[in-house]
């Protein structure tokens, strides 16, 4: 009694649930496709080229799998009855009607079942009406839109043939320059050579007028046999600006080039002496060469080279009155220490490099500097 109506209701709900499952599968497939396309585009850009056809096949497989799984999960009668009871005001009637628990053989249960069937039949029109008025709970527009946008973008990226990453290209170029590889881009080589020549010329022009003054200053390092202007500079010799700060002082090249930093390092040496101004008069050793004594206690190479410079200008360092007389007003705004101006005047300018040719390391340095300067512009 009333079974066709109940069956009709269950079938209608089953179709509704099936559609909901399908919409849910479409939504998942949309988001999954968007993620897949974006991932493929990223891999194509970063790691290895991805053929667009393979990516589209992968997306198609995802869609087919999800839709097939949704179609495969046919809602059972119990599922439909439970859904009606939960969402369409079934009040557990449909679940009870399909429940195998009650035994219809018992008279009391038979009476209850008859009443239940009548109750359910009376409830069917309202249930169907509620079902028709019910809006889909699963929305697919957003996922489909995301899939379309991501797919368009990804297909555009996948269609690009030259997808060598710029970062990798820069890394390979820098490696080639560092190794002296002749396959370095030809367009950069003349520019680098020209720039190196300009730098060498500029250094030579600034070095020539100060050479006599540097010799008058008693620079003992200038008398060394490895002076740069005595002859061609060996390939191993480096200009002062390229010498690392922690280079050994006993190295002849660095000793001869140490005067380049005189303007700065002398100021540092004086400042070290001024900082230890009270200590400077405490012991003869400190008065003789406070820079050396301080350098001996430290591990940083920069003060060590500065102390060497102070050793070169020992007459000024020995003047204790001058070391103790710190004039704050005379200090430059950059934080130069007392006596730095005097030391800077006594320092020799950078020594000229006789040859304009640079070694491979120097060339790579100049090129890297040029690129960095070009990027910053």
């Amino acid at each position: 009694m009333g079974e066709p109506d109940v069956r009709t209701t269950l079938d209608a709900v089953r179709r509704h649930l099936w559609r909901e499952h399908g919409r849910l599968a479409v939504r998942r497939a949309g988001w999954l496709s968007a993620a897949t396309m974006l991932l493929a585009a990223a891999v194509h850009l970063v790691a290895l080229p991805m053929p667009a056809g393979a990516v589209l096949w992968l997306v198609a497989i995802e869609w087919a799998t999800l839709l097939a799984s949704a179609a495969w999960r046919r809602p059972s009668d119990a599922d439909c009855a439970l859904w009606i009871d939960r969402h369409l005001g079934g009040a557990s009637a449909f679940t009870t009607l399909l429940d195998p628990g009650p035994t219809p053989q018992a008279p009391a249960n038979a009476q209850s079942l008859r009443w239940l069937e009548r109750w359910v039949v009376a409830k069917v029109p309202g249930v169907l009406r509620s079902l028709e008025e019910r809006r889909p709970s699963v929305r697919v527009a957003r996922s489909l839109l995301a899939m379309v946008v991501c797919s368009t973008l990804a297909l555009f990226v996948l269609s690009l043939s030259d997808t060598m990453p710029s970062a990798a290209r820069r890394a390979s170029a820098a490696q080639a320059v560092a190794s002296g590889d002749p396959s370095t881009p030809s367009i950069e080589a003349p520019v680098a050579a020209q720039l190196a020549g300009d730098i060498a010329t500029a250094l030579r022009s600034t070095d020539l007028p100060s050479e006599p003054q540097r010799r008058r200053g008693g620079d003992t390092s200038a008398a060394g046999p490895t002076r740069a202007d005595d002859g061609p500079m060996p390939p191993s010799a480096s200009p002062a600006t390229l010498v690392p700060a922690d280079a050994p002082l006993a190295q002849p090249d660095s000793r001869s080039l140490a005067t380049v930093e005189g303007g700065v390092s002398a100021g540092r040496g004086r400042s070290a002496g001024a900082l230890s101004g009270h200590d400077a008069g405490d012991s003869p050793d400190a008065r003789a060469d406070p820079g050396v004594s301080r350098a001996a206690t430290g591990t940083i190479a920069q003060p060590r080279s500065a102390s060497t410079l102070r050793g070169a200008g020992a007459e000024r360092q020995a003047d204790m009155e001058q070391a103790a007389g710190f004039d704050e007003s005379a200090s430059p705004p950059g934080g130069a220490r007392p006596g730095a101006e005097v030391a800077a005047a006594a320092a020799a300018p950078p020594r000229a490099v006789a040859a304009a040719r640079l070694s491979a390391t120097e060339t790579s340095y100049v090129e890297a500097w040029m690129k960095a300067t070009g990027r910053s512009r």
Partner: protein
Amino acid sequence: MDEGDRAQPMTTELPADNAFAEAHRQLLELRALLDRVIVGQQELVGHLITAIFASGHVLMEGLPGLGKTHLAKALAAALGLQWARVQCTPDLMPADVTGGEIYVTAAGGASTFEFRPGPVFAQLVLVDEINRATPRTQSSLLEAMQEAQVTHAGVRHRLPSPFCVLATQNPIELEGTYPLPEAQLDRFMFKLTVPYPGRESLLGMLDVSLDSEPADTLLPIAGPADVLQIAALCRSVLLAGRCRDAAVDLVVATQPDRGDSNAGARRHIRYGASPRALQALVRAARVRAVMAGRSHVDVDDLAAVALPVLRHRVLLRLESELDGMDADTALAAVIDGWRARL
């Protein structure tokens, strides 16, 4: 020897096709009648009717003057039930409740002891201020409430049917009282709290019961036989597997030592509901289904009776009681969590 057979139910079959419709109609009529007499206590009246037809007993807790005794009298009058009242005091003895043997001299000169039934042999027993009776007297009700019989001097006396105990207790003035033990509390199907009526209800009450007692003039709309018929019909209400699982889940959710219990229960409840609570829950839900015109139980029926069934069957932790937590608040969280999982 069994006595009280005279009060056995008169079972007459309702027409098979409209039994539930007829029961539904009678229950609605009874409820409407009581709502007219007991103004502003609709929920209380509904639970009371549910307990009557589910063969349960009710413990009503409320302040004096809220109409508890009036409600019991009106219910007995509307259903045509024989009712008795026991006013509990500390000197009340068990024989005052169950009855006792008295020495009777027959006309021929032969003397014998004869059992004189007490007030508990009425169909509707109002035990007023039950917590003022001593535990010994309170325990005399245990057998009557659970097994519907009284054993006296080795003789078993059956109680009439239907049989229902309506006990009241006062939540204040606890001095000189004896709180009911858990075993006795578990015998009550419902524990109902009687709230203050609203303003509109108070105004209506002035019209209804200012100069007269409406329960005294109430005409019965049903009899004990009808009560038994409807109660029997309620026992045939269908209970699907989903609702069975839901009822069990609810009882289990109150038990803090179970793995699938509610988090709130684990935090606040020391002892959860007993299996007797599960039985009471389903029986009451069946009556609610018939009152709704259905022959099957819905989870909403279970939810409607969950709180009065469970509130006196759980014991809170001492820390929660000190924090001001009561059983209703703790159970409300449990019931909400249970409903969310359905």
